[in-house]
């Protein structure tokens, strides 16, 4: 027992040295701009998806400025979780973050750099080309705290092959016809596939369901935070959806339907129509994944009494107040927000926040739905997030609308409860 392999002191020292070595910060010494975003933003800014033609916009800016881009990507909720943790620090390592307007609450905005002074000092070219309603979504008390970069606006996707199978053709032009189509498109195909006439990702957030309900005139609350959740439009919309659910037009797992399930069911012909952002057109018609490539079309959602409705979500560039290289951050935001680069990003698959982009011939050639999306965005509404509990208000909407649609509550009762609960959140 005299031969010792390693003494306790040696073992502890080795462990400590090992940990110390691993703890060495992995931060490069060169000038680095750190961007926190969803993967899709990196892809559209860098032209990273094969077949896109907009080029590496961010990479060109980085090369011109001698900057290394450090792109941190994650899914939507994790990005915002991470951002809020970073904003609580004395200094953040994040230079630019892409935030979605549903999380752009007053509480968050207070921790972000006010951008009006930056815009006055070294403004984004043709800033007026970004519609004021998109800018309003990232303004609190008149102060701009983010610059819109991408929009996701809802439309009505429909499978032309299934329409033809049921003796229908062309997109429905009124909400009544849309409902009628949904009913007629609910059937069992000869191979045994059960087709639901309409799918909405009701489990994924209020966005798509509210688009459909807004066709009946439904609103949760307006820009001045007047709650309108128990209005006649909401009640009528919920009644119609409850009827569709009972008839099997909406899938039986309506309340938990995810975005993925809706996309997959559209791709496989298990749903004939869906309300979802226009950008899903690409996924629906992806020849690798879709049984109906080129046959799933998209059009604006018709509103009751004429016209169209849509909801839009906005992703916007924000600079943390505790960021350390704000000049560089703003330079990056300004470059990517220019009119020319908005079009280039759109060619890479981005939803352009400048309507003028839709007139670009290259974009029109690449995306067959530019005209329809331009109509939708002109009619689109955002769900204001100008109070801190706006995310909870969205949850209340989901709970109450789901309860009405699947029959746990009467539409009137659900709408009244929605109003009461949302009002309480706004007053809080």
């Amino acid at each position: 027992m005299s031969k010792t392999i390693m003494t306790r002191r040696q073992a502890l020292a080795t462990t400590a040295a090992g940990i110390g070595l691993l703890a060495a910060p992995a931060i490069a010494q060169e000038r680095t701009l750190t961007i926190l975003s969803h993967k899709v933003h990196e892809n559209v800014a860098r032209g990273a998806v094969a077949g896109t033609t907009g080029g590496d916009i961010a990479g060109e800016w980085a090369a011109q400025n001698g900057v290394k881009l450090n792109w941190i990507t994650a899914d939507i909720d994790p990005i915002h979780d991470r951002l809020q943790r970073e904003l609580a620090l004395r200094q953040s390592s994040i230079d630019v973050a892409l935030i979605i307007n549903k999380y752009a609450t007053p509480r968050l905005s207070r921790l972000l750099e006010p951008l009006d002074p930056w815009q006055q000092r070294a403004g984004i070219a043709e800033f007026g080309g970004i519609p004021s309603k998109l800018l309003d979504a990232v303004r609190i008390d008149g102060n701009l705290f983010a610059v819109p970069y991408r929009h996701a606006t809802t439309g009505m996707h429909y499978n032309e092959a299934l329409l033809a199978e049921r003796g229908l053709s062309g997109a429905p032009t009124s909400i009544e016809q849309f409902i009628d189509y949904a009913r007629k498109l609910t059937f069992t195909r000869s191979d045994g596939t059960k087709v639901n006439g309409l799918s909405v990702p009701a489990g994924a957030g209020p966005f798509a369901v509210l688009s459909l309900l807004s066709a009946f005139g439904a609103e949760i609350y307006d820009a001045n935070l007047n709650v309108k959740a128990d209005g006649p439009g909401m009640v009528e919309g919920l009644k119609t959806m409850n009827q569709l659910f009972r008839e099997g037009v909406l899938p039986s797992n309506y309340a938990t339907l995810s975005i993925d399930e809706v996309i997959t069911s559209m791709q496989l012909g298990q749903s004939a129509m869906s309300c979802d952002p226009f950008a899903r057109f690409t996924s629906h018609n992806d020849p690798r994944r879709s049984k109906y490539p080129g046959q799933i079309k998209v059009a604006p959602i018709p509103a009751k009494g004429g016209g169209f409705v849509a909801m839009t979500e906005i992703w916007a560039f924000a600079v943390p107040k505790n960021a350390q290289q704000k000049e560089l951050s703003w330079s990056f935001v300004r470059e990517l927000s220019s009119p020319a680069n908005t079009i280039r990003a759109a060619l890479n698959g981005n939803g352009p926040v400048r309507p003028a982009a839709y007139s670009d011939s290259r974009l029109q050639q690449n995306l067959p739905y530019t005209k329809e999306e331009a109509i939708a965005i002109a009619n689109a509404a955002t769900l204001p997030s100008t109070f801190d509990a706006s995310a909870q208000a969205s949850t209340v909407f989901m709970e109450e609308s789901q309860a009405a649609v699947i029959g746990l509550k009467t539409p009137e009762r659900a709408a009244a409860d929605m109003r009461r609960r949302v009002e309480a959140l706004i007053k809080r």
Partner: protein
Amino acid sequence: MLKLLSHATKISGMALFMLWSVGPVLFIVVSSLKQPIDIFAYPPQFLFTPTFENYVSLWNSWPAFFETMGNSLIVSIGATALASAVSFLAGYAYSRFSGTWLAASAFYMIAIRLLPPIVVTLPLFPVVDFLGMSDTHATLIVLYAAFWVSLFTMIMKTFIDEVPRELDEAAFVDGATRFQTLWRVILPLAVQGTLAGAIFVFVFSWNEYLFALIFTTNAAKTTPLVISEVMDAIYGTDWGVLFAGVTVQIAPVVALVACAQRLLIAGLTAGSVKG
């Protein structure tokens, strides 16, 4: 007849149990070899020509998946080594010594383990940032090891309790120091417990998502974070690529457990006191 019925019931029960346990894993692995269009096709396709298209797409579209596997490996091995070393020593202390403070520390250790991990991250994030340890392997190694040390220690205590104290005493009589006794007598006899605990830590570290999400960005980013990105909430999930990624992710764990199975099952302590 009754015997036959009983036999059939047993087999059916076993088949159902197998389907319940193996079915989802098999579905993922098999789907990773299908054309994306056929994965959720109706009627389901049980016979198909396997393709590696999804693995190629994973390689081309998500290079970060394979790059981050190195981080996952470093973190998993580091956490497993650290937790094993600490838990073995702590297990020995709890097994061979007693006292109020030791009992209190054991209670504290278990109590801390009961905290939901998300709660722990709240105070920890600014601390890790202050120490300049954000996005380092060391942070994840320490966190994962700390997360498992309490349970692992109790496993080790139970195993070391089974090692007769007479062996310690015999080693001391032979002139061994306590550390030599630990290293040369106790550890070989408790290796089965150490291995079992180590596998738990490794599997946990390999698959952990929450701590990795909060405490890493790029340099120490682990594979589960990339898998979560493949589950895309904007353009929809590419199921084939996702299933290919999950198959690659679970392969090392399955291989590890398969290799360690013999050691896990074998009663290494059998006969240790018979001389």
